[in-house]
């Protein structure tokens, strides 16, 4: 089994990626499981760049295949904000209740056609020889008029998915997985890793 180190401390993400790599000749480890510790300064200008920065650092440190993700919410009316600053938006320790309310306040009175937004997820993979790839996937939607649902976290309660007529916080796990931007990006990267694997 070849090792892939996924640069996250988030167990939820680890479960998701393990599920996707099940049945492949790769074993996905978290940084902690791989004994790696790093506080990576990622001030890239895009999701892709940030994911690559993290994956590159971990690949260099460990000498193994490394993957990393960077994701966030892009609101067109706000010029793309919070975007790559999604986690740090209004301050790292600010609750999402406040962050969500701030976005709703900014969009007060804006018609549905102007409320377009998307969840973006970039997943980067870097091989020990330095070769790298990055895949981006999105979920298109709108900013809701008011927060709804409690099945989600982060910006989920204000992100409305027209396909289901619900916010992502109102979707069931199954529905959410079906449209998950992270799952889509992971599938794309998995194909890349598996293709690279055949060259070896």
């Amino acid at each position, binding site marked *: 089994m070849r090792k892939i180190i996924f640069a996250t401390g988030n167990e939820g993400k680890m479960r998701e990626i393990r599920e996707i790599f099940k049945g492949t000749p790769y074993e996905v480890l978290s940084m902690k499981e*791989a*004994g*790696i*510790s*790093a*506080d*990576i*300064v*990622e*001030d890239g200008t895009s999701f892709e760049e940030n994911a690559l*920065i993290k994956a*590159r*650092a971990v690949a*260099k*440190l*460990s000498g193994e295949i490394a993957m990393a993700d960077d994701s966030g919410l892009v609101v067109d009316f706000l010029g793309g904000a919070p975007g790559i600053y999604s986690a*740090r938006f209004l301050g*790292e320790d600010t609750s999402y209740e406040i962050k969500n309310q701030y976005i709703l306040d900014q969009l007060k009175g804006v018609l549905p056609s102007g409320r377009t937004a998307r969840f973006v997820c970039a997943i980067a993979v870097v091989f020990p020889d330095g070769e790298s790839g990055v895949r981006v996937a999105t979920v298109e939607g709108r900013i809701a008029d008011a927060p709804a649902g409690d099945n989600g976290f982060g910006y989920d309660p204000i992100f409305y998915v027209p396909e289901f007529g619900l916010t992502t916080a109102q979707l069931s796990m199954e529905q959410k997985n079906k449209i998950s931007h992270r799952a889509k990006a992971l599938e794309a990267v998995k194909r890349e890793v598996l293709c690279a694997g055949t060259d070896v």
Partner: protein
Amino acid sequence: MLRRAVQASFVLLCLCILFSAYIHRVMAADAAFLKLILPILSVSEAGEWEDAAGPVPPDIALPVATPIPVEDLAQQDEPASDLPPLPAVWKNVAGAESSAVVRQLQDVRVIVLEKREGYGGSTAFLEELPTTRQLRVTVGGIMGDALSDGQVKRIAGDAYYCGTPPTPTPTATPSPIPTGKTQMAPTSPASPTPVPTLSPSDPYYVWRNDVVKAIETTAEMAEDGSMTQTLLLTLDKTYVYQLYEDEWNYYIALIRPKDVYEKIIVVDAGHGGLDAGTISQGGAYLEKNMNLDMVLRLKELLDEQDQIKVYYTRTTDWKPSLRQRINLANDVEADFFLSVHCNANETRALHGTEVLYDSRQNAFSGMNSRRFAQILLEEMDEHLGLYNRGIVAREQNLTVIKYAEVPAALVEVAFMSNASDLEILSREEARAQVAQGLFDAIMRGYEELGSGAEQEEGTEEAMGQRKEDRWGR
């Protein structure tokens, strides 16, 4: 009744005189011996190695001490009858009661390596691995069987141990004492003060005072058919090691570092190995390398002096655990523990130098962690001149200084998450200034320690006022 008492005290007095005369001789011999081996000992810190999960042996072995043959010892020709009888344990272990070496070492904690057939032309040397509390013993030129762990005997007080000790059981559940050569009970009953978590029925109980906690042996055959045997001994703490030999045994005396060196500091380069610390924007700089670079520059300065013995937790890219780092300082009873780090924060605008210490302050009179932190900050301010963020009291939440039993401080030199701090850190000249600042702080620490004067506080108020730093920002 009175007569008997007088008689008894006279005998006691005679014994005292004899004993002090004996001690005096031992000390004199030791001093001469130390002069001989100290220069060799000081190269030993280089014996560290890259490591992933746990300690692994380095590829090169550096000799730290070669044995002193019995004929070099001054008191060899003195009649043994003048000396008090050897403790019984020595007869069992050394089997050589008249040896001058044994006479000299009988009150010291000693590891004895038995020479068996074919050891006549063998040579031994030691390599200390202080951070992991390990000692590597290499015996070369053995014309016979390789050493077995049964030849490794330890004497501590009136108890002796032989073979590989069992691994302590975490829970004190009663279980039968295993038999065989790896379990040789001490010759005297166990001490009356048991370790709280260890019940006397625990098989490890009799081993609790053993200085050796693990033995790894490897043997290699040379082209001439002789064996080179390596013993990696893990001990209960870090000692200064002195190697002696006589016809029958090699003897490794375990000496308390403070009995050898008057001044001791421990310098720690933070992170290492798979623990990168902060990775700067774009991955150009890793904190572990920055820290090590500054520590190695400090080492160059410290190598110039011979007043202070310096232990380094690492001088290469590997990761000692946090406890190993601070245990080293506690083991050797260091005067100071200094850990060198770089800072990072999500708020990229934060910049400057700060020094952390534990809020308990290890309140020794005169010098404590807080005072040491303050001196370090002042010297960093003087030499590097970044924005002065002050000293920071940590509420027992920073492992590396929390467990310190000695004055300990952690310098956060600059913020690797701040572009401008990072640019300065990336300059060699700045890192050399950091090293000079740390060096001067250590020297000032010793000056204050020496003078024993209570230092005035309050300089702190004056610090942190600097709005512009020396780098024109």
